[in-house]
């Protein structure tokens, strides 16, 4: 388990640099700046793109993603809303049906629960239920994360949204993906839940300048290996990459997969990898029960059962509401050591 936040960030940065080394000719910017580029480029490209959210204007956004945008684009296009998540998303759904391209910022994913009716019962249903005649192309940007924020502000709900047909759910780990996915989400005609992570906004990585879009589907192999497949997404990717480095020092070759898009879920990439490595460990920051890890594990046993040499391992949070105290919080969130241990258990 990592002992301090600084250590964690350092670990993430080193792992991030490892990812970035494979890329050439792109600028190194932060995850936050990659998001800012995506938003401003799309706002410049299409006057129907607008931002709605709590304190995104004068305040600059809780995680400072939208700082300065209101001065740049005006109050009409950068709307400070009341603290009313259901209302913000519902208004955005209606506006999107009628031709606008609203990007909603929900301060954290914890507050998305207040908006879940509009996301699940409205946005996700509009296109199918009305026989393809209407679309609700909203983007809901929100942030997962933790850091002594207490029980109601430290949760990870991507699995809830990934459960819902009619949504696309994206959870990018790298600045490059953040930019490419966000631009595609804004241009696309599906409702997208775009989940960031409060602890990776400062991560740096190489990002193409100018117009760069990525299809909103498909996992990515971040590190090739032969002995065990480590599967994760968002900040979990950095745990997996850190663990892979340590495993390499012990002579174990780990393949690391970044799921990136959680609906539609690209289990094919995982299955293909497991057919090679015969072992699989899934790393998630959320609770394991009913989580995405369970879904991925089910797909692996369904399609690669004969290739498996060990049960699929899962590393997740301890199943308690998040305690405030620093030492207790560190016990809840999985660390690199647990990933290493789970990988070695799969290899035992």
């Amino acid at each position, binding site marked *: 388990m990592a002992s301090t936040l600084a250590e964690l960030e350092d670990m993430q940065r080193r792992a991030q640099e490892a990812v970035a080394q494979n890329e050439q000719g792109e600028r190194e910017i932060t995850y936050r700046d990659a998001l800012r580029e995506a938003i401003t480029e799309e706002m410049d490209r299409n006057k129907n793109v607008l931002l709605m959210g709590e304190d995104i204007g004068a305040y600059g956004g809780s995680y400072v993603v939208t700082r300065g945008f209101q001065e740049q684009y005006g109050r009409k296009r950068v709307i400070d809303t009341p603290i009313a998540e259901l209302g913000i998303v519902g208004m955005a759904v209606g506006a999107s049906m009628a031709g606008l391209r609203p990007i909603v910022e929900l301060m954290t994913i914890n507050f998305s629960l207040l908006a879940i*009716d509009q996301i699940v019962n409205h946005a996700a249903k509009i296109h*199918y239920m*009305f026989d393809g005649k209407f679309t609700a192309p909203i983007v809901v940007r929100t942030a997962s994360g933790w850091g002594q924020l207490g029980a109601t502000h430290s949760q990870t709900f991507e699995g809830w949204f990934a459960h819902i047909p009619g949504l696309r759910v994206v959870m990018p780990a790298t600045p490059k993906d953040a930019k490419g996915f966000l631009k595609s989400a804004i*241009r696309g005609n599906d409702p997208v839940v775009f989940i960031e992570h409060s602890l990776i906004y400062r991560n740096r990585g190489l990002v193409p300048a100018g117009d760069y879009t990525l299809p909103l589907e498909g996992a990515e192999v971040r590190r090739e290996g032969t002995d065990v497949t480590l599967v994760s997404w968002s900040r979990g990717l950095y745990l997996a990459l850190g663990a892979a480095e340590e495993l390499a020092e012990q002579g174990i070759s780990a393949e690391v997969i970044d799921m990136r898009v959680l609906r539609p879920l690209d289990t094919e990439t995982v299955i293909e990898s497991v057919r090679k490595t015969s072992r699989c460990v899934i790393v998630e920051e959320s609770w394991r029960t009913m989580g995405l890890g369970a879904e991925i594990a089910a797909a692996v046993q369904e399609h690669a059962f004969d290739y498996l040499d060990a049960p699929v391992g899962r590393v997740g949070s301890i199943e308690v509401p998040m305690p405030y105290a620093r030492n207790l919080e560190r016990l809840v969130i999985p660390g690199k050591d647990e990933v290493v241990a789970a990988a070695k258990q799969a290899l035992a």
Partner: protein
Amino acid sequence: MASKAEPAVRAGDVALGSMSKDELLELYRQMVLIRRFEEHSAEQYAFAKIGGFLHLYIGEEAVAVGAIHAMREQDHLVTHYRDHGYALAIGSDPNAVMAELFGRSTGTTGGRGGSMHLIHPERNFWGGYAIVSGHILIGAGIGLALQYQEIDGIAVVIFGDGATNGGAFFEALNMASLWKLPVVFLCENNLYAMGTASEYHSAVPQMATKAAGLGITSEIIDGQDVLAMYEATQRAREYCTAGNGPYFIEAMTYRFRGHSLADPETYRDKDEIEEHRADDPISLYRERLLQAGKAAQADFDSIDAAIELVVDEAVEFADKSPWPDPSTLRLCLRRRVLARPAVAGFDL
């Protein structure tokens, strides 16, 4: 609430004086169409041709017909799930509406939505919605799009008295009032939230009081008077398009039949229903036209006879229509990843 002076003329008299005979009879025709359509629907429900829920609009016809008659081409409509009347009043083909109730491929959404999710895109009817109060936000959001794109139209959003207790109602009204959106909030107060009388579900007897608290101009209208509804909606339309912000109409009405056909109606007694049946919007209107010398009994008789044929044909059409093709089950779950180039105006 706006203070109302004693009217110099009876509500609806201005419209009565200014409309042609054809126009006046068109309102009658629409109300009779809805009434007969609903009676036939109930019969087909009993024959198990229609499944699930069936929420009849009988008794409330004047609200839909009067309000929708005041809407223009550039206006938009979003309603709750008791929506057969709105679809018929705004010009949906009765055949397609009945086919949708039957769940057939020729229905308004090809059998995808069902009776609670009728649409008529040609007249910007964005659907009936079935999560109580959720759609009020969709309507307000369309109002936001109209204001943003500087389109000279209004969004009319219709909901029941029961919906005025939900959070979405207050969030929508607050933002619409705050941002002066061109939205007519039309509350159909039929005295019951499903089977709970308003004295048990609302802290105030008139729902317009809630709008007043958010700074929205409102009026309470006799919803059994189709001409009064028309005039009120016209006033609301003028108010909204002049940039004054939203307008709230509380239409006092009564549902002659149960909440749905599954309703045993244990919560109100027969005497109460009989008392309200004296305020039948169709017979009241017929009497008014006769007394004003605007129409003769023969006019009504010929409309009644014609409507019988229309509704009989709708049932026959629905019954003969094919079921949705099972191969279409997964269509319209997602749109293309990237949208067409952005265009000004409404991008449907």
